[in-house]
Every structure is written in C-alpha cells, then in structure tokens.
C-alpha cells in the first residue's frame, strides 16, 4: 500500500533556475547594441519611412498629384493607399503573430539581467511609439495644413492624407497594441495576466484608435463644409478638434515609463538585498583583542 502511494505521487522536481542569457561583450542588457538596439533602430526606421514618403511626394505631387481623375493619380496615389494599408496589415499580422507565438516558448522565469534587457527593449518600443506619434501628429499635419490651404482638393485621398491617414495612423495602433503584447508576454512582473489590463495602455491604445476613427469624421466634416460654406480650409475648424483628444490621451505613455522604472528600482533593491544577505557577517572583535 505504502509502495502504491509512493509510486502514485511523483517526486516534486526542483524549480528550474531562472533563464539567464549568455554574456556577450557589448550586447548586455543596457548596451547600445544589446537591450537598447531596438530603441535606436525602430525610431530610425520610422523616420526613414516618413522621409522616403516625403521624397516620393517631392517627385510626384505637382506633376501628377493634383487631379484625382487622371490615370497617373490612380497608379501613383490611389495605389499608394493600397500599398500602405497592405504593408501595415502584413507587418501587424507578422509582428503580433510572432509576439504571441514565441510567448508560448520563451522562459517566464528569468534572471534580473534578462528582465532588465526586456525592459530596455520595451522602452525602445515605447520610444518608437512616441516617434510615430510625432510623425502622425506633427510631421504630416503640418503638410496637411500647407497643402490644403493652398491647393484645391477634389478627393478624400489627397497626397497629404495618404501617408498620414493610411500609413502612420494605423501604424500607431500596431505599435501601441504590439508594445502591450510585448509587455504582457515578456514582463510578467509588470503586466502579467494576474494584474488585469493596465490603464496606461488603455489610454495609449484609445488614443491611437481614436485617431484612426476620427479620419471618418474628418472627411465627413470636409464634405459638409464644402457644401455649406464653399471651398474654405480653416485648420482650426470644429471637425478637426477631436484629433486633439488623441494627443491628450497619449499622455498615458508617461505611465508606461513610470511603471517600468519603478520595477527597475525594485530589481535594484532585490539585488542589493540578496548581496547583503550573501555577504559574510562582519566579524566582531572583542575590545582590546586582536
């Protein structure tokens, strides 16, 4: 009987040691080519795409970008909408899919070094989201104001709308949700399943989704404005105002930095506490001795 019980209950295996990646010189958790690499590459890639699109506009706007009824406009500009949306769609499915797929196999028990590296990568993604917010809310809107106040629009898919509304706006949703998925699957101590959905990401994702949804109201407003008041383009017109809400909701991004820096301090405290516990007790020397 005793033998049966002993056989039925498997021996409790020891918990595996936390995963600690091998040390590679120059690629540590807080090295520029280590944990911070994506914090540099990702913003540069985004800025590069924006600049490349701006150069494309410089060549093709004034010859073929002002009359939406021409075949050149169809191929150079309407197809740019399709390519942009397809590109963002493919990138989104690939990145989110990779994050979720690999989440099943990556170690969840990790060393402090590895957690710090993941927080650095997370900051890189937050930084990329911040740069994308700039491109969405400043770089292209400046062009939109310049273009539409000086040139007649004859379509909703204008040269200045295409990179803004159909490339970088949806990319904002991709980056915000993707950063959440990274935090949710890679930083269990900060955004683990047991904690619920963070308010910080709720606000940031709401900002990016609001921005995309507002495109429809904007185009509807322009059609109303065109009909009632003639072809007038005031930039501070009422149906542009909800875009501002997005800029305000994006304030949630500061909470992401706040939450993770607090975790970094916890990691530092834990490491210090452990070292203090491991250190040999100071030897007491009797008075007058030695």
């Amino acid at each position, binding site marked *: 009987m005793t033998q049966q019980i002993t056989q039925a209950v498997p021996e409790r295996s020891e918990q595996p040691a936390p995963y600690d990646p091998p040390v590679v010189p120059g690629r540590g958790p807080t090295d520029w080519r280590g944990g911070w690499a994506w914090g540099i590459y990702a913003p540069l890639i985004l800025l590069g795409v924006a600049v490349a699109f701006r150069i494309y506009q410089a060549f093709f706007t004034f010859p073929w970008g002002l009359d939406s009824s021409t075949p050149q406009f169809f191929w150079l500009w309407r197809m740019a909408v399709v390519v942009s949306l397809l590109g963002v769609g493919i990138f989104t499915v690939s990145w989110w899919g990779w994050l979720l797929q690999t989440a099943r196999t990556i170690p969840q028990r990790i060393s402090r070094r590895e957690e710090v590296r993941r927080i650095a990568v997370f900051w890189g993604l937050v930084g990329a989201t911040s740069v994308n917010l700039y491109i969405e809310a*400043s770089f292209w809107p400046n062009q939109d104001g310049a273009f539409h106040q000086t040139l007649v629009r004859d379509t909703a898919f204008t040269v200045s709308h295409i990179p803004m509304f159909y490339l970088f706006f949806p990319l904002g949703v991709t980056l915000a949700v993707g950063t959440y998925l990274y935090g949710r699957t890679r930083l269990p101590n900060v955004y683990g399943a047991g904690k*619920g959905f963070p308010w910080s990401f709720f606000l940031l994702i709401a900002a990016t989704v609001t921005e995309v949804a507002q495109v429809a109201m904007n185009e509807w407003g322009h059609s109303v404005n065109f009909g009632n008041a003639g072809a*007038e383009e005031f*930039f501070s017109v009422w149906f542009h105002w909800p875009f501002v809400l997005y*800029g305000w909701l994006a304030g949630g991004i500061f*909470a992401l930095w706040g939450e993770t820096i607090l975790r970094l301090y916890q990691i*530092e405290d834990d490491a210090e506490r452990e070292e203090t516990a491991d250190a040999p007790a100071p030897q007491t020397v009797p008075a007058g001795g030695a």
Partner: protein
Amino acid sequence: MASSVIDVRAGELRALANREYRYIDRKWDLMFWVTAAFVVGAAANITMLLFAGDWDFWTDWKDRQWWMTITPFATIIIPSALQYIQWRAWRFPTGATYTAVCLFLCTWVGRLIQWKYFINMPINFVWSATWIPAGILMDFILMQTRSFILTSLVGAGAWTIGYWVANYIMLAPFLQPTVFMGHTLTVADVQGITYIRAQTPEYLRVIERGSLRTFLQETQYVSLAFGTTLAVVGYWIGQFIGRYLSVWPIGRFLKQV
C-alpha cells in the same frame, strides 16, 4: 532636535544620490528625455495646430485680437501637463521650457520641410512663433511659488504676455505701414495678398479688422487680458492631462475580464 532630524534626512538623501546601481545608468535618462521629446512636441503641436493653427501659419493672421487670445490658450495646455509630470517626478521646474523647446523644434521642422520646401511659401511669411521665453518665465514662477494654483494665476499671465513680447520682436517689421495699390496697408497685408492661398477665403481682403487699427491699438491690451483669462483655463486642462492621464494610471489596472 530639529537639526538632527534634518541631518538624518540629509544623510538619507545623500546616500540615495550616491547610490551605486547595477543596471540603472545615464542611458535610461538619455532614452527617456530624447524619445519623450517626440510625443511631447507632437501633443503640443497638434493642440496648437487644430485650436489656433491658422493664426500662427501666416504673418498677416498674427493679428492683435485673435492671435494673442487663442494661441496662448492652445499652447499652455501641454506645458502645464509637463510641469506637473516633471515637478511630481523630480521636482524639476522645467516642464514648460522642455515642452516649448520640443514644440519649437517640431513646428520649425514642419515649416521648413512642408511649408517652405513642399508648397514653396517664403519662410518670412510662414515663420513660427516661439514659446521658449514664455516657458522659462512660467517655470520660474513655479520654482518660486511651488504652487500650481499660483502658477496658474500668475504663470498664465506670464505665459501670455511673455509670448506676445517675445514674438512682437519678430512681428514688428511686418507691421510697418506701406502703400499698396493706393491703400495704406502693413507689410504683412501685402504678403497675404501677394502669396495666394487659394483655399482660404481671406486672400482678397485684409485679415486684421480695421477697428484694431483705428482704436489706437488699445484692443491689443484688452486681448492680452482676455488671453490671460483663457490661458488660466488652458492651464487647468493641462493639469488634468498631467494628473489623470499621465501620472494617475501608473500601476493601476482595470478589472480582469
């Protein structure tokens, strides 16, 4: 007794300042301040563009009634939020200046790349205002008063007047009188008539209303006073953003689904 408490507290702060960290170094500071600049500049720029952009795009729209009334309101919102965030996090009285610098850079990139090199408007017609002196003033008031209430009351006035004074230096040459086609106009008016903005309704008429010029410009000071009042409201909108959309959510979670 009191001095010993202060000594203990000073010792604690000194130990904190001199603490050796394993993982936290200056790279974290650099990455934060640089990447945060983009979202701060973007939020400030989109708020300015869509609430008061028209009055900042063109020299002839920089008038003495609307420009100084609406623009300080629209541009104080995000600096106020950043004042709260930076004061709360580090006791840095730098939020307004930081935002003003970010906004200035974002606006100038836009003016050069989009307004000058895309649609070929001369930069002395579409130059951007500056908010940096106004930001320094408002941060100085926060540093001295250590109070958001006083900063909202006094700082909002400093922001509005500082904004006007700093930009008047650049605007003054464009307010000089000139005779154009038999009419006495300002240089800014002539710019507005010369460089056609086909999609705005005002390309055939003078933007600034005549009453502003006939009332010996006293309306300018009335506008500054009203602009200050609006800026106080804008300051508290910014405080709401800083307090409840940026700092309050730290470590808070919605209920699990």
